[in-house]
């Protein structure tokens, strides 16, 4: 079957993921863009005898490439040359959205516009003459309502027609002032001698806009340097003749063209008296109410994650307990039975029990994101975050960190300045992720009974506090630098469809399941094997291999009051934090909770919670830090500072709590 590759692009918050989900269904392949860990989402649809492969590009306002996200989107379109580019445009905000469309058209790629959110545009009293708009821009336009799945079939059929060359393109050419057109002609003439596969008019315009990336790209080419300097001369010439930077003149010409087109194709039937989003924001971003509401929202997410999931967690727990008893009564060969009962059920099972908590946490976060609250959080907290050397958007990364540090670290890529982004990344592992949650819950519920939620909550407070504290240190001592801009859209609040939220949650939650499946299961087998051998040693006893390893590590942790079983569990927790429970379950058996309860004093247990909170990022997080910072030094830095901090804090807290109790 013939394949059509379609890139899906658009401004942030135009319903891109919703439309993408509608186009491809839940069958999505999530990977990474080469070289960076920015998530790359792909999906397929069989349509009209073709396999249409959709590639989801990061949301962007233009092809200026000022953040990693934008660069990825641009490079894909320019260098990978997809067969068709679908630009998703918010019909209720054409003015700004069409800027990207014009830039895309200028690159010479085959653009199809999906005019999304038609329903919202209509409700706002905006009436669009789609055919006229399509004629003006010279590209096909399909009206869609992604939340209801409207227009998806039509969009696919247009994509196929475009790929088959059945639709002729007369793409709009924005006419710039003569001085600039002259420069474009000259430069693109020179460019056509050295490059064949990139649209030279677009490249020339980018040179005149002094795009750093484009300049660097050309300087690496033979004869490219000369063209760059020719362009530089033109920039000076334009500046002196027109009294302005070509950057503005070009941008203004584009916006001018857009308003000209909109005047002919769009009419406002009526203008709304109040903007509903604005109404919400009067409260949610209020100067005094904004912050208390933010904390209230976080607290409810926390309650939601625990209380709502609690009955399901109990159910799974009972199920595993019952399975353990059933298999325990079977008459099968003892090593196999031990593997099933001690390894799979009490080890692996003890981790799976927490899957509902994790899914509920991801659900709550998907809702916050899809509704549009995250940017409000950034708006509310930017000033405060800056005091700690962070950026307003760092708060988004920190909140996501409660779910998964990997995800959170990747989300920092929307922060433009390298220093701010790095700081955000480096402190993120201190935010307790959902994998640490089960460990913390387990210890808290064994030792603190009625006060367990309080003990748990104190870990979250401590984690946030430490992250802020480290951020100040890093910013003050190591990464003193430029402040990055905070030019951020506050998108309209939306009621996302259940489908969008479910897929969003599933994409993330299933990652955890896969991790549980592969990493944790293999860890279980290894731990079980180490606990079983050598022959003759008591299972999980001090003379088994795992016991030897534990006794080897124990002296380091002795000041904190941990015995060798805890030491070895912490050791394996480095693979993934949940494995800590897994390891205890294997070594001590199904009643590990009671046994652990006898091993530590409450003060030491609290210290252990602090230790687990801080001690090391999991392997996958470390790998992400490595790829996001591109540096081993930063990666090792995180590992070391966390270890040292964990020792000191666990010790201090053990003493402190000991005095209090």
């Amino acid at each position: 079957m013939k394949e059509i590759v379609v890139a899906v692009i658009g401004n942030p918050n135009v319903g891109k993921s919703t439309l993408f989900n509608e186009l491809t269904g839940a069958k999505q392949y999530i990977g990474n863009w080469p070289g960076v860990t920015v998530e790359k989402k792909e999906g397929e649809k069989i349509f009209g005898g073709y396999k249409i492969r959709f590639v989801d590009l990061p949301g962007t306002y233009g092809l200026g490439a000022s953040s990693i996200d934008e660069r990825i989107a641009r490079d894909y379109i320019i260098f990978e040359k997809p067969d068709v580019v679908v630009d998703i445009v918010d019909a209720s905000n054409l003015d700004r959205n069409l800027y990207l469309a014009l830039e895309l058209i200028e690159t010479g790629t085959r653009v199809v516009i999906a005019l999304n959110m038609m329903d919202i545009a209509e409700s706002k009293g905006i009436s669009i003459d789609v055919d006229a708009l399509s004629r003006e821009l010279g590209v096909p336009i399909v009206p869609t309502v992604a939340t209801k799945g409207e227009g998806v079939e039509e969009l696919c059929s247009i994509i196929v027609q475009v790929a088959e060359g059945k639709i002729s393109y007369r793409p709009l050419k924005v006419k710039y002032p003569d001085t600039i057109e002259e420069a474009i002609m000259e430069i693109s003439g020179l460019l056509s001698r050295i490059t064949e596969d990139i649209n030279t008019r677009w490249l020339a315009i980018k040179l005149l806009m002094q795009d750093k990336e484009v300049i660097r790209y050309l300087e690496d080419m033979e004869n490219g340097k000369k063209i760059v300097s020719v362009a530089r001369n033109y920039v000076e010439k334009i500046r002196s003749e027109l009294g302005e930077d070509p950057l503005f003149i070009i941008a203004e010409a584009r916006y001018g063209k857009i308003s000209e087109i909109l005047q002919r194709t769009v009419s406002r039937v009526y203008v709304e008296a109040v903007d509903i989003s604005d109404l919400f924001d009067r409260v949610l971003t209020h100067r005094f109410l904004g912050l208390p509401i933010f904390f209230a929202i976080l607290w409810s997410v926390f309650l939601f994650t625990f209380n709502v999931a609690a009955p399901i967690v109990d159910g799974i727990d009972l199920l595993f307990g019952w399975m353990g008893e059933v298999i325990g009564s079977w008459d099968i060969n003892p090593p196999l039975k031990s593997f099933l009962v001690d390894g799979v059920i009490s080890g692996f099972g003890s981790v799976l029990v927490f899957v509902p908590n994790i899914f509920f946490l991801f659900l709550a976060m998907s809702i916050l994101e899809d509704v549009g609250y995250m940017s409000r959080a950034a708006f509310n907290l930017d000033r405060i975050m800056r005091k700690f050397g962070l950026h307003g958007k760092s708060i988004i990364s920190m909140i996501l960190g409660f779910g998964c540090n990997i995800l959170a670290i990747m989300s920092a890529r929307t922060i433009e300045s390298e220093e701010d982004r790095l700081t955000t990344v480096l402190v993120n592992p201190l935010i307790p992720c959902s994998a640490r949650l089960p460990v913390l819950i387990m210890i808290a519920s064994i030792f603190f009974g009625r006060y367990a939620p309080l003990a748990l909550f104190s870990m979250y407070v401590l984690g946030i506090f430490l992250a802020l504290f480290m951020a100040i240190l890093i910013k003050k001592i190591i990464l003193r630098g430029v402040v990055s801009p905070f030019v951020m859209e506050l998108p309209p609040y939306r009621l996302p469809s259940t489908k969008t939220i479910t897929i969003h949650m599933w994409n993330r939650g299933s990652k955890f399941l896969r991790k549980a499946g592969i990493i944790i299961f293999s860890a279980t087998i290894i731990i079980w094997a180490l606990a079983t051998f050598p022959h003759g040693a008591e299972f999980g006893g001090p003379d088994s291999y795992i016991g030897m390893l534990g006794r080897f590590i124990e002296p380091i942790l002795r000041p904190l009051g941990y015995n060798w079983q805890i030491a070895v569990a912490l050791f394996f927790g480095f693979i993934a934090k949940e494995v800590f429970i897994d390891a205890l379950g294997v070594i001590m058996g199904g009643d590990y909770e009671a046994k652990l309860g006898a091993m530590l004093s409450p003060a030491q247990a609290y210290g252990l919670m602090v230790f687990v909170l801080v001690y090391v990022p999991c392997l996958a997080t470390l790998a992400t830090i490595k790829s996001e910072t591109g540096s081993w030094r930063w990666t090792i830095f995180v590992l070391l500072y966390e270890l040292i901090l964990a020792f000191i804090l666990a010790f201090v807290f053990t003493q402190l709590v000991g005095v209090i109790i």
Partner: protein
Amino acid sequence: MPVLRLDELGDGESAEIIGYDDRTPPNLKMRFVSMGLTRGVVVEMVRRSVLGDPIEFRVRGYFVSLRKSEARYIKVRKLGGAK
């Protein structure tokens, strides 16, 4: 009509962008341009965040937030009839 900086607008006041300060960093210029903050466009100051910073504006039919330190680079001409 007096020329002001964008961060000097009061709640609900509108102004037309007339240009950028010469000292505007290039990456910020790029950003402004792609977000539609170009000359001739009318900007309305909507609200300030906690501690008065950042500031939310309405421009081209959507909402955008800028820090005071960034809004300062944008020169505007205040329009009458606000509030």
